[in-house]
């Protein structure tokens, strides 16, 4: 899925308008003593990594990158205009700096000079324009289309790219860090989507879809403090036990998607470290707020209080996550509302809200399949057990995983789903909570919320924005149509030979998809 999320830290007003260029910013925020204690990155070695995703239908076309496997190796092959640093701030990648007009409608990006593709061709401003245009327009089949739809005009101006939006958006540079929006070589204003070329840290040597990818370091990479490995050898191992065996027997150095049921066994294996990273990925139970009984907010509140979030985190996530508060903003995000009361399991309150709605008990159906998230069916069953104490009878309907997004999600009135999160509050709310958005899976339409969403988007004053986003989280949590039981960590494991940076990107799995260029062999 197209998930990019944001981690900790904030973007200052100056940083927002000017664009930081210091790539090492993440390292600089650490006290000197800590930095000394950390092993210095060094070059060498071929990283062997096994990932849980990867499919024989994977392709090099950026419109279709749907799994961590393709996303990560293509992020190593290519670059985007901006990059979300491990601490969650935004830094330049192929764009050196950027500036916005006062209303945040027109954005000017200064493109880095002297960058070449692996083929030797110089990367030009035209390549940037063509690469972004590929995702726009009627013909686009790209999953990133909704992100670039607000662009009304994009043109080259010397070494700059000038982008005009349909409305002000203070977070626009964050969107350009999306992994779909990589810069590929172009000819006559079109990019070739089958090319293996790119400007990134690693040159693609071989790609066998659903099996493996081999890459070697790009000797001309424009970042000197990145790309420590000589090469990358990434394998797709879908079976969790096989993946963990590969790590234990030393066939690979890093794996993702550790099976939470056996994580304690893996922790005991010699020479292996388990690395959980708290991200903004969260699991949800959206209700169709247009339909009875979910159109009544008292019923929605009752359902939100009838859920034992801590139990789900403990039993489904084995502690690798945190309780959700019925809004999609993660603790690490810039405008996370720290004063909003955390909802807990409270059958009395749930009963109270039922009574408000004029009912003593209620029966609902909850559709779930593990396609929504691993453990979705178990979560639904636990939910039903706890909710029963409040007079809420949940009948868990077990749906087939196959075709889940076609037939269940946004079709059944109450179901399980997940979001990988988005890098900014605006994107997350716009995509899944604004009225009429194609993925608004609760079909929620709240006038005050929608109004705040638009005004916060173009607001450049940090305090005012914070106030607005805080209010929106409050509205979402107490009047919204989505039960958000938990935020799940990304759980990876690696051999102790691998060097891991002190700060790890949380915007996506695999160190914000940039593990290949950020990690090293100790």
């Amino acid at each position, binding site marked *: 899925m197209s998930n990019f999320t944001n981690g900790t830290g904030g973007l200052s007003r100056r940083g927002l308008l000017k664009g930081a260029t210091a790539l090492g910013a993440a390292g600089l925020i650490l006290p000197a003593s800590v930095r000394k204690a950390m092993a210095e990155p060094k070059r060498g070695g071929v990283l062997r990594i096994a990932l849980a995703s990867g499919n024989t*239908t994977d392709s*090099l076309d950026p419109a*279709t990158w749907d799994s961590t496997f393709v996303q990560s190796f293509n992020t190593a092959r290519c670059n985007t205009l901006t990059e979300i640093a491990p601490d969650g701030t935004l830094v330049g990648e192929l764009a050196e700096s950027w500036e916005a007009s006062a209303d945040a409608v027109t954005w000017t990006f200064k493109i880095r000079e002297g960058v070449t593709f692996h083929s030797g061709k110089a990367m030009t401003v035209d390549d940037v324009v063509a690469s972004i245009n590929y995702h726009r327009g009627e013909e686009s089949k790209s999953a990133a289309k909704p992100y670039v739809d607000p662009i009304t005009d994009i043109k080259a101006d010397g070494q700059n790219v000038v982008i005009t939006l349909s409305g002000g958006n203070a977070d626009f540079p964050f969107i350009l860090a999306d992994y779909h929006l990589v810069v590929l070589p172009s000819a006559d204003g079109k990019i070739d989507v089958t090319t293996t070329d790119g400007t990134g840290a690693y040159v693609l040597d071989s790609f066998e879809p659903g099996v493996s990818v081999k890459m070697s370091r790009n000797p001309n990479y424009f970042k000197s403090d990145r790309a420590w490995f000589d090469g990358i050898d990434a394998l797709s191992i879908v079976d969790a036990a*096989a993946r963990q*065996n590969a790590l234990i027997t030393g066939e690979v150095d890093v794996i993702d998607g550790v099976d939470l049921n056996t994580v304690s066994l893996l922790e005991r294996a010699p020479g292996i470290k388990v690395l959980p990273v708290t991200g903004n990925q969260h699991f949800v139970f959206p209700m169709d707020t247009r339909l009875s009984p979910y159109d009544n907010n008292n019923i929605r509140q009752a359902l939100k209080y009838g859920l034992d979030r801590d139990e789900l985190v403990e039993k489904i996530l084995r502690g690798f996550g945190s309780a959700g508060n019925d809004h999609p903003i993660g603790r690490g995000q810039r405008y996370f509302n720290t004063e909003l009361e955390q909802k807990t399991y409270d059958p009395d309150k749930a009963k109270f809200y039922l009574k408000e709605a004029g009912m003593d008990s209620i029966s609902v159906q909850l559709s779930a399949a593990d396609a929504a998230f691993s453990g979705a069916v178990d979560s639904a069953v636990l939910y039903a057990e706890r909710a029963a104490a409040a007079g809420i009878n949940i009948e868990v309907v077990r749906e087939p995983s196959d075709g889940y997004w076609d037939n269940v999600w946004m079709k059944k009135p109450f179901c399980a789903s997940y979001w990988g999160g988005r890098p900014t509050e605006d994107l997350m709310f716009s995509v899944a909570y604004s009225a009429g958005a194609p*993925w608004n899976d609760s079909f929620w339409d709240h006038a005050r919320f929608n109004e705040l969403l638009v005004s916060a988007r173009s607001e450049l004053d940090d305090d005012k924005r914070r106030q607005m986003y805080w209010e929106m989280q409050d509205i979402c949590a107490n009047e919204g149509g989505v039960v958000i039981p938990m935020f799940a960590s990304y759980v990876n494991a690696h051999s102790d030979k691998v060097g891991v940076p002190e700060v790890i990107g949380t915007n996506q799995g695999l160190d914000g998809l940039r593990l290949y260029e950020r990690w090293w062999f100790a």
Partner: protein
Amino acid sequence: MGLIWTMIAKRLGLGLLTLFVISVIIFSATELLPGDFAKAILGQSATEETLAAFRKEIGLDLPAYQRYFNWLGGAIQGDFGTSLSGNKRPVADLIATRLGNTLFLALYAAAIAVPLSLVLGILAALYRNSIFDRAANAAALTSISFPEFFVAYILIFVLAQSGLFPSMTRMDADTTLGEGLYRAFLPALTLTLVVTAHMMRMTRAAIINLLASPYIEMARLKGINPMRVILKHALPNALAPIITVIALNLAYLITGVVVVEVVFVYPGLGQLMVDSVAKRDFPVVQAVALIFAAAYVLLNLTADVLSTLSNPRLIHRK
């Protein structure tokens, strides 16, 4: 001998018809599945517009019968089309290496399993009801009773975590034969354990069946040693059922090993088939299904031809 050739020709013709029917069934089945390739790839993030553009690009906007006949027209000329995925890889390319891998593993497993089960079956018949017979039977039945993945995990636990054999099987273009045999040992052993029981017990039963016949009695009375009785007198007459069972198991080794492929990360056809069905990549599903069907048709034909040849009464029919 003419009889044999007519039979082969007839069966091949019927086989082609079977393949055609299978292609229709598979196509209709993929059509019946909810969702399509565009939806499967774009998943949760699909919008109506992007789906329409995607379908148009890969030709999914055409009506189903038209897509089927386009595919059939190509297939008759040996062109199985291109995968729907953005790589536009010809299906033949996509399948070639994986088919090679699948055949390699199937042959490897068969090379261990067939001689092993024949020898065990013959010995079990020879020493029937002895401790050896009971032990061999019990062991074979135990291994067939466990699910494949369980056998695989046990082997990994015992043989791979101690470092004797690799827990996963990487095969690429520059893997030498020796290396390939070493790396694929555990999956081959797993499959051996799974298929041996069937063939061994069939061998034993077929031979024991014959041991009650008068002509065996006669051979015994003549004082021929029991091993010779079985090899010279009983076995040739027991060949037909044994060959059939071997052919069935070989077909299984080609078509039914996806679980073993997944556990050992072996890039074979099974995994490709499962992936393609999940993503509704219909040209690939069709091609793989046809290969699987062809394997059954050809192996059954081979079994029938060999059984006929092993039986003089069928060859010299009046």
